[in-house]
């Protein structure tokens, strides 16, 4: 078993193209200008001792261990803060510097616990550095003033501080701290939260969270960057304290959001000791958030179901059965249903949580095995409009950049996205760029954190009324065209000129002027104008957007409006610009790429295309249906009408995540065989007849594709707890249905994907092993993938401008439902919460709250923390209120992480015109004081409890 060790170069890389050559310890070294001597030395294989430096934060020069001598220069400069220069002659090991280092370490060690547990475990650099510099004795002893002893000679030690154990995942023990400030700098530079500081001076100086608060009560977001940076045992993962140091590790990919961070899973046997972000991970560059680093405990949670289960009726208790029995039952039921109700009476849902290989197999099962195209995925409810909108305008359905691109952006326009909560690691990278001076425009009904947060302030915030994105985006275009800010050379060369002219005429119409749009959106015309000017003229301008754009009745129109803006200003096809959807789930990009939609085969090729079908027909040996299949919502409609009777749902909780819960429940209840394949008895499983236990990302090999089209490896670190990895379970089901599938490893599935999908033609596990990751398209033209798309031309040839008329949603406020509800996420919880609710992350967010403006709250007699009833035309629920001015008057906001809240009981069935993506972001509601749960919540809880009963059968053998 091996351990993935990464080199720490001590200071960050220099970006300079110019190189300089110097001599270090007699070796000639050539490095980019601006590199530190410490880094140059490490690049030459020479390790200079250090405590206060690492290569993720700027050098600080506080520990003085890295002193060196330079010929012709006085003194002993710190190698971390001294840049290289042509012809320098550096010595890192002279007797003089060695003596100084020993003296420094001796002082450090005189105030470091002799019995430091971290030193003993090998998790503390102090012991290693003492050894490196050859420290033999501590002449000062530990008797004098120190931070180590709680009491001395019967008197309390005023310098001693108790360990802070408030954070569930890490401990802070001040007695081991050397105040090197690496944690403070990591919090500032890497995470960008500024939660930590050094308070006091000299011997009194201390690391302090917030205003000298426990970590948990401070503004700390528990990303763990400080723990990772700490060279001593002062900040340590509690899991390491409990389990001891890891023995082996491998690189894998986080299974939470669409940023797709790379982690080293550090293990002891089959137990995860800690997850450490991987510096070579190109999405996260060594950073992480609280979910990825710490919230993996769900993988071994007692609620996990480990055996297949069956029941005849959804009111029966579950009965544990063997895999063989469960699969035979599903196969028999599905074939019966097809015989009785027709071939189109069953379908499947692929999971954006599962790997590409697994997703590919589920759609293959549907198309090859079920003989129809009734396959869909949860991208239906999040980014399907991105697919439609970008395909129409650019020719393919994906973000245009890599995350590194943000480092070259001069203007960032953030629309309907809240990355500090939903895509935290990307948010940190964005904040870093904003602190360097890039300008920010925020278009969002809520005053999200990025509007004003330490050292970041948006140039413009356009707090539009929910549902008016298209109007505002088209008004931005109006300003750009009417004020002559169009990049005409770009448009003439790269886009369809006729379509541009038609579009320009359209956006100039008076109803699209900022003044007219102010009336519907509530955004002052001048702000719209100023934002448009900044976007068009501020240098490299990049658009990042989220579900606040897509989850509307005009979601696809808004995506096209965004694409129009980027084309009109020439902000496409180079680093620092582009159109970047921030994808929700870890593999939602991949699930879409893998042909999870009912109208297209992998690689976004329409099912009606005969040549594409022929590729699959040849290797699958069946005739494929040329007609598009049903979308999730259509499947439910068809179920209610009686023509759809069976479904295989892998890793998605549609009852909780899809709109209008009652309708979903009604649809599921009308089916005869609902198969749920998941880790837990989720809410959908309340309506299931068969439950197949799923596997976590730790239990399988595969790949995820993140929001930047990056194909990252997922590596197995433990055996599947329920016997089969999800791809194996699907394969067994296919076999039970009579298909001859014989994949022995997910790499063979990827080989089939590569052989059949032009944009993946060059992808293989060997390539990923070599390169770490690649971004599709990856083929002959781009053997190592494509970081930036549409460089020399659009995928569709010429970019296409599309008219984006604003059509107000039919979900309107009125006297009965005067407020607009919009929904979102918070940092510590994830989507339906199935995972994060089963971790200590609940200490930050134990329940969903309804954010309401003080004005609206006061009008209704609602105080902070009160129970309130939230009612819409679709239904009602109760939750507790949070009175805040983050939301504008007239707007309320909630998250949907907890099933008891049932926020989707309230959301309606209004949906995007093109893709049926539900309009989660706009629901007309009323809020009133309440005493407790609604009847529906009570009934639902009772039903959920009943339907989760399991009868543990004696083993059959």
């Amino acid at each position, binding site marked *: 078993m091996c351990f993935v060790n990464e080199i720490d170069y001590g200071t960050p890389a220099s970006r300079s193209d110019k190189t300089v050559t110097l001599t270090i310890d007699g070796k000639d070294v050539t490095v980019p200008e601006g590199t530190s001597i410490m880094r140059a030395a490490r690049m030459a294989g020479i390790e200079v001792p250090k405590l206060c430096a690492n290569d993720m934060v700027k050098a600080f020069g506080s520990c003085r261990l890295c002193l060196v001598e330079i010929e012709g220069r006085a003194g002993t400069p710190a190698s971390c803060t001294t840049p290289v220069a042509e012809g320098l002659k550096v010595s890192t090991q002279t007797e003089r510097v060695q003596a100084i280092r020993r003296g420094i370490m001796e002082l450090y060690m005189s105030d470091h616990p002799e019995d430091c547990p971290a030193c003993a475990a090998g998790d503390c650099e102090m012991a290693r550095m003492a050894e490196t510099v050859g420290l033999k004795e501590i002449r000062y002893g530990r008797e004098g003033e120190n931070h180590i002893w709680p009491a001395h000679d019967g008197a309390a030690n005023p310098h001693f501080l108790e360990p802070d154990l408030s954070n569930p995942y890490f401990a802070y023990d001040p007695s081991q701290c050397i105040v090197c400030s690496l944690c403070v700098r990591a919090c500032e530079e890497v995470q960008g939260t500024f939660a930590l500081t050094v308070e006091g001076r000299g011997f009194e100086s201390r690391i302090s969270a917030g205003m000298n608060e426990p970590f948990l009560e401070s503004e700390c977001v528990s990303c763990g960057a400080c723990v990772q940076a700490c060279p001593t045992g002062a900040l340590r993962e509690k899991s390491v304290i409990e389990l001891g140091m890891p023995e082996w590790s491998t690189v894998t990919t986080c299974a939470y959001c669409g940023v797709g961070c790379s982690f080293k899973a550090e293990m002891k046997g089959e137990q995860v000791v800690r997850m450490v972000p991987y510096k070579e991970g190109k999405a996260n560059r060594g950073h992480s958030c609280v979910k990825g680093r710490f919230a993996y405990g769900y993988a071994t949670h007692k609620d996990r179901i480990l055996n297949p289960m069956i029941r005849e009726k959804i009111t029966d208790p579950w009965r544990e059965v063997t895999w063989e029995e469960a699969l035979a039952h599903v196969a028999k039921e599905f074939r019966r249903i097809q015989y009785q109700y*027709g*071939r*189109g009476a069953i379908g499947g849902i692929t999971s954006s949580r599962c790997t590409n290989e697994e997703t590919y197999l589920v759609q293959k099962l549907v198309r090859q095995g079920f003989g129809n*195209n*009734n396959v869909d995925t949860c991208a239906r409810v999040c980014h399907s409009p991105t697919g439609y909108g970008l395909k129409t305008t650019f020719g393919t359905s994906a973000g245009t950049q890599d995350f590194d691109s943000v480092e070259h952006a001069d203007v960032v326009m953030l629309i309907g996205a809240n990355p500090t909560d939903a895509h935290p690691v990307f948010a940190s990278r964005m904040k870093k760029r904003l602190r360097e001076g890039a300008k920010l425009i925020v278009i969002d009904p809520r005053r999200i954190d990025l509007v004003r947060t330490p050292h970041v302030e948006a140039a413009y915030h356009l707090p539009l009324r929910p549902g008016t994105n298209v109007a505002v985006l088209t008004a931005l275009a109006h300003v750009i065209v009417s004020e002559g800010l169009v990049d005409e050379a770009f448009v003439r060369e790269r886009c369809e000129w006729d379509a541009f002219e*038609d579009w320009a005429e*359209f956006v100039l119409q008076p109803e699209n002027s900022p003044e007219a749009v102010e009336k519907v959106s509530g955004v002052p015309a001048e702000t719209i104008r100023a934002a448009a000017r900044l976007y068009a003229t501020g240098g490299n301008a990049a658009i990042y957007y989220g579900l606040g754009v897509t989850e509307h*009745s*005009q979601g*696809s*129109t808004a995506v096209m409006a965004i694409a129009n803006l980027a084309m009109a200003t020439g902000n496409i096809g180079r680093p620092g610009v582009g159109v970047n959807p921030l994808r929700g789930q870890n593999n939602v990009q991949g699930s879409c790429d893998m042909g999870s939609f*009912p*109208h297209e085969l992998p690689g976004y090729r*329409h099912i*009606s295309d005969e040549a594409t079908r022929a590729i699959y027909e040849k290797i699958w040996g069946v005739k494929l249906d040329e*007609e*598009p*299949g*049903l979308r999730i919502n*259509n499947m439910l*409609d*068809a179920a*209610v*009408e009686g*023509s759809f009777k069976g479904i295989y749902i892998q890793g998605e909780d549609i009852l909780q995540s899809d709109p*209008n819960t*009652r*309708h979903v429940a009604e649809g599921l209840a009308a089916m005869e065989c609902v198969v749920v394949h998941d880790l837990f008895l989720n809410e959908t499983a309340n309506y299931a007849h068969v439950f197949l236990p799923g596997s976590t990302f730790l239990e399988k090999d595969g790949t995820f594709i993140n929001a930047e089209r990056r194909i990252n490896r997922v590596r197995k670190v433990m055996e599947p707890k329920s016997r089969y990895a999800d791809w194996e379970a699907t394969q067994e089901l296919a076999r039970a249905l009579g298909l001859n599938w014989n994949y022995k490893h997910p790499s063979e599935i990827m080989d089939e994907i590569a052989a059949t999908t032009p944009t993946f033609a060059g992808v293989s596990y060997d390539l990923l092993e070599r390169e770490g990751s690649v971004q599709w398209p990856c083929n002959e033209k781009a053997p190592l993938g494509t970081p930036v798309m549409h460089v020399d031309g659009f995928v569709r040839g010429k970019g296409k401008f599309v*008219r984006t*008329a604003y*059509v107000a949603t*039919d*979900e309107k406020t009125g006297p009965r439902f005067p407020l607009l509800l919009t929904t979102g996420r918070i940092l510590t919880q994830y989507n339906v919460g199935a995972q994060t609710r089963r971790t200590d992350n609940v200490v930050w967010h134990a329940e969903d709250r309804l954010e309401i403006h003080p004005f609206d709250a006061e009008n209704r007699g609602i105080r902070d923390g009160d129970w309130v009833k939230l*009612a819409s*035309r*679709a*239904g*009602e629920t109760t939750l507790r209120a949070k009175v805040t001015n983050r939301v504008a008057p007239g707007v309320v906001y909630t998250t949907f992480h907890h099933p008891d809240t049932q926020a989707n009981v309230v959301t*309606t*069935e*209004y949906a995007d*015109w*093109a*893709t*049926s993506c539900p309009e989660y972001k706009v629901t007309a509601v009323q809020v009133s004081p309440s005493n407790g749960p609604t009847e529906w919540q009570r009934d639902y809880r009772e039903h959920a409890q009943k339907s989760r009963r399991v009868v543990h059968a004696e083993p059959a053998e």
Partner: protein
Amino acid sequence: MSHEAGVKTGKEKLIYMANQIASFFETMKREEAVEGVADHINKFWEPRMRRQLFEIIDRGGDGLKPLVLEAAAHIKRPQEARA
């Protein structure tokens, strides 16, 4: 709660969806709009949905926008249900 907006019958939903599609294309040139609506429905509507749409159209198309009715000539009629 009563069944109000948002909870429509299957036919009402289809009419609503078809009209929504038409609303997007309405601002375009007529020919482009007609083609746009038909192409969208051909590409994304499962045969069961198109069959229902034609049932509505064949009964006079009550509730459908004129653009949808105009596009109907270009929408593929699904083959008869197969077993």
